[in-house]
């Protein structure tokens, strides 16, 4: 049978009645457990025999007075959940901090926020479905045919030498002026031109 556990040893040395009948029977039959329990009991008795020296009878009054004096410097303990009056200054400081925080947040979101995207100067968004006919008609557009005919033989260098040149950024501005359908058409023309020139 298993020897006594640590808790059972404690129960045994403190009160033999605390053990079950089976465990008590084991102790009766097991010399090792009996010997160990006896040794623990002896140590316990030796420790118990050490009486604490009694301080002077005057010590207790002196001690309680000392504690009371020390506690006079302590703020009174507060029952949990009780409303404690807070000085006006505390509320004022708390209010100022809140106002400062709110002001900072507002200032950061308005003045220091990144400026909104400059709206493209595309006047009216064009619905592609609507603009398709325009793209289709562009090849048949007489005005556009005139422009193409007039510029078919134009060499860029000659135009530049003749003083016909765009201002810096003019191309970008012109591109910005185009609507979606015009941009698509421009892209197509550039592609064709690049294919034609073998670029």
């Amino acid at each position: 049978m298993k020897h006594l556990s640590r808790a059972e040893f404690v129960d045994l040395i403190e009160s033999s009645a605390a053990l079950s009948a089976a465990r008590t029977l084991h102790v009766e039959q097991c010399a090792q457990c009996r010997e160990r329990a006896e040794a623990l009991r002896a140590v316990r008795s030796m420790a118990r025999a050490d009486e604490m020296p009694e301080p002077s009878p005057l010590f207790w009054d002196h001690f309680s007075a000392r504690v009371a004096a020390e506690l006079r410097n302590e703020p009174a303990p507060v029952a949990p959940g009780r409303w404690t009056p807070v000085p006006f200054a505390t509320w004022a400081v708390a209010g100022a901090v809140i106002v400062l925080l709110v002001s900072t947040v507002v200032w950061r979101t308005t003045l220091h926020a990144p400026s909104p995207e400059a709206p493209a100067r595309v006047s009216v968004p064009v619905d592609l479905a609507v603009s398709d006919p325009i793209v289709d008609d562009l090849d048949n557009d007489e005005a556009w045919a005139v422009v193409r005919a007039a510029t078919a033989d134009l060499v860029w260098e000659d135009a530049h030498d003749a003083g016909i040149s765009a201002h810096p950024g003019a191309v970008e501005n012109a591109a910005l002026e185009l609507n979606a359908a015009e941009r698509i058409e421009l892209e197509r023309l550039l592609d064709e031109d690049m294919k034609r020139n073998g670029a």
Partner: protein
Amino acid sequence: MSTDRTLDRPWPGLRPRHWRVTVTRDRTNSAARPDARQLADDRALVEASLEGNREAFDVIVERHQRQIYQLCYRFAGNHEDASDLAQDVFIRAYRGLHSFKGQAAFSTWLYRIAVNVCLNRVGARAQKWTTLAAADQPDLREERADTKILRGERAAAVRAAIARLPKKQRAALILRVYHDLPHDEIAAIVGTSVGAVKANFFHALANLKKLLSTTS
């Protein structure tokens, strides 16, 4: 010697207001278990203290100072440190009085603070065990001189051995042997299970035996 003291006026803020609290100071049986009346009184005293009545806490100190001092002495090993530790325990208890929920006995709560204070403070420094001064010894005038010396030496050896035990074992042994606290209350004080307390107590006794046999 036992003295009864009745506060002759009800404390303001105490509910019900007609309560009168009788304080019993029993200096002969320091490890006496608190009875139901004392438990109720302790709670009333705590409530009164929380209402701002400092006298109520003075009564708490008077009522528990002996047990707390004795516990601190067992950990510290000398009168000066024990009284300093005990004072610290009551100051901490006063500061944290609002956290006493009344689920355990007030003495259990106070013991818990005391054990924590002692383990933190005493563990961090070497103990100065008082030498066998005549004033510290029980009245041994009737004993033979050699018996007296032997007894003193044995007591010193036991104290020194206890001081060398690991913290939890030391706490379990002191609370069980010198304060007669039941294992479940010790478990509540040190924050472990009853099984763990018994195991610690077992190891404390076994280690004490080893240490004492080494010393002898």
